[in-house]
């Protein structure tokens, strides 16, 4: 487990538990009836001056959609690459009335998500949830929830490499100039080379987008399946890169366009299979190897979406989908898609 030390002490504590007597030091929090178990920390861990600095960066990021605002990223109680950028953004915006959801590759149950959720439960005492619709802030690593987001929600992405041109041009000075001059031909050449090599654009995650027709932006390593969800989304989307010290944003109702060519239009992944559990044919599916004999199954990457669908089916809701799920063939050796997140290289470790 890579959980931060003090967060590890509060395993199992939820905000709706009664306030422990030990919270006496945090009077203003206690007044609001919340359980803060981490002692000796400011609300949401960061000091107030750091929060102000991050807040100013966030406001400029929203004012200049897609532009990467440099900020003074702090050391956090977990290593760079474990979501420090997203955590700092969340810590700067979160308040006592917020309800936090944290997902890692779509799931609420994976190590990174559990750690970060506990971290904020311990340092803020805010309520946490796994329901996408209940959350006011959703911190995410590498997915956008399947359930459509609503106005007023904030989606915080953990970003490993914020600069879309970085693998094409190593110099920060140069890439900054290229953004200033709107000089993005290199990225089109890269996508064209994909077509020349493979016959199609082989970039399947972290697929570059243009925000509001101006800045080229890296959407963090979400599958390109999620790219269309960014476009004109009613929720505010904030991106934090801790190691690279950048914050950027997509305001609500902002045009986000995936790069493509007229004769090679942008396409999202599709699967021949449906989810083994809920039978969904519309969600992003993870391919899970089940044995040594080539057995595998496909399940929703979004655990809340899958769980809600199954709960609905259990109440006799979507009987057809449940039946479909039972009939779903467990075909070995035929991956519907070759680029599930499991195939991502090490560089995509979130920051």
């Amino acid at each position, binding site marked *: 487990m890579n959980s931060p030390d003090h967060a590890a002490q509060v395993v199992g504590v939820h905000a709706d538990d009664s306030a422990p007597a030990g919270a006496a030091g945090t009077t*203003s929090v206690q007044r609001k009836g919340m359980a803060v178990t981490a002692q000796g920390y*400011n*609300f949401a861990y960061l000091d*107030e*001056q750091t*929060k*102000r*600095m991050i*807040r*100013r*960066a*966030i*406001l*400029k*990021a*929203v*004012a*200049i*959609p897609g*532009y990467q*605002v*440099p900020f003074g990223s702090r050391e956090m109680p977990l290593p760079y690459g474990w979501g420090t950028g997203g955590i700092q953004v969340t810590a*700067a*915006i*979160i*308040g*006592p009335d917020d309800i936090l959801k944290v997902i890692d590759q779509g799931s609420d149950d994976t190590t990174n998500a559990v750690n970060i959720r506990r971290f904020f439960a311990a340092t803020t005492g805010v309520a946490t949830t796994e329901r996408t619709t209940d959350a006011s802030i959703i911190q995410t690593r590498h997915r956008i929830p399947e359930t459509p987001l609503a106005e007023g929600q904030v989606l915080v992405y953990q970003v490993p490499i914020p600069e879309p041109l970085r693998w094409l041009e190593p110099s920060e000075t140069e890439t*900054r*100039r290229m*953004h*200033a*001059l709107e000089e993005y031909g290199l990225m089109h050449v890269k996508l064209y080379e994909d077509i020349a090599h493979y016959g199609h654009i082989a970039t399947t995650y972290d697929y570059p987008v243009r925000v*509001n027709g*101006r*800045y080229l932006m890296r959407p963090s390593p979400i599958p390109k399946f999620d790219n269309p969800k960014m476009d004109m989304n*009613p929720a*505010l989307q904030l991106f934090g890169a801790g190691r690279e010290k950048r914050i950027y944003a997509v*305001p*609500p*109702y*902002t*045009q986000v366009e995936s790069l493509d060519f007229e004769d090679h239009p942008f396409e999202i992944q599709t699967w021949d299979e449906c989810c083994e559990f809920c039978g969904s044919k519309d969600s992003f599916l993870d391919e899970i190897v089940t044995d040594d004999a080539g057995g595998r199954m496909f399940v929703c990457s979004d655990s809340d979406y899958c769980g809600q669908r199954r709960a609905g089916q259990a109440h006799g809701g979507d009987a057809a989908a449940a039946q479909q799920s039972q009939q779903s063939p467990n075909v070995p050796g035929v991956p519907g898609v070759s680029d599930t997140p499991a195939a991502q290289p090490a560089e995509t470790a979130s920051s």
Partner: protein
Amino acid sequence: MLIAGDTLYAGFSDPVFDSQRSFRAVLEATSHPGRIIDVGTPIGAPPPLHPATAAICLALVDFETPVWIQAATDANTHAIENATEHAAESLSQFLRFHCSSPLAADPALAAFAVIHAPAHMPPLTAFSAGLSDYPDRSTTLLIQVDGLSTGRRVQLSGPGIKHTQQLAPSGIPERFWTEWRDNGALFPRGVDVLLICGSDIAALPRTTRVEMTCT
């Protein structure tokens, strides 16, 4: 230096949560340009500061952000000097005490500008529009107006606005809208504006396009 008879107004009673609430109001306003948002942080503000202006300053301004205060340092506003000289002094005292912020003599060097008499404000080009490599290094203007829904109606569009958004700020000079169009043409450079009245704010980030309506 406290002027005799002056009161130094208190800051936030609960700095952590009041800052957070004020910031979220500004974030919501910036995310939805033209939408009127109540900052809702109870605070006493030294005149001519409106409560929302004081709350935003306490939430966002510190030793890293030079502030330009209208009239206190602007030689061009002698006409309104008498009325605002004293006000500007108590205002700068408030900011220096609570935020430790340096005061900028030149609006082009300010991270924030506090404007309480928009009729006499310098043109938007007097403020920092940032650099083409670093467009975030631009001034955020806090402009206090007489009302946000009682003046001439303008129609807003751009990121953060689903279709269009109406706003009717009063007490803002006509030239502001011409200057705002020129500001938009600088994108990605440009200044960002928060219009403030009482405890209400409405944001005009640089991406917001404004059309004058005939009504």
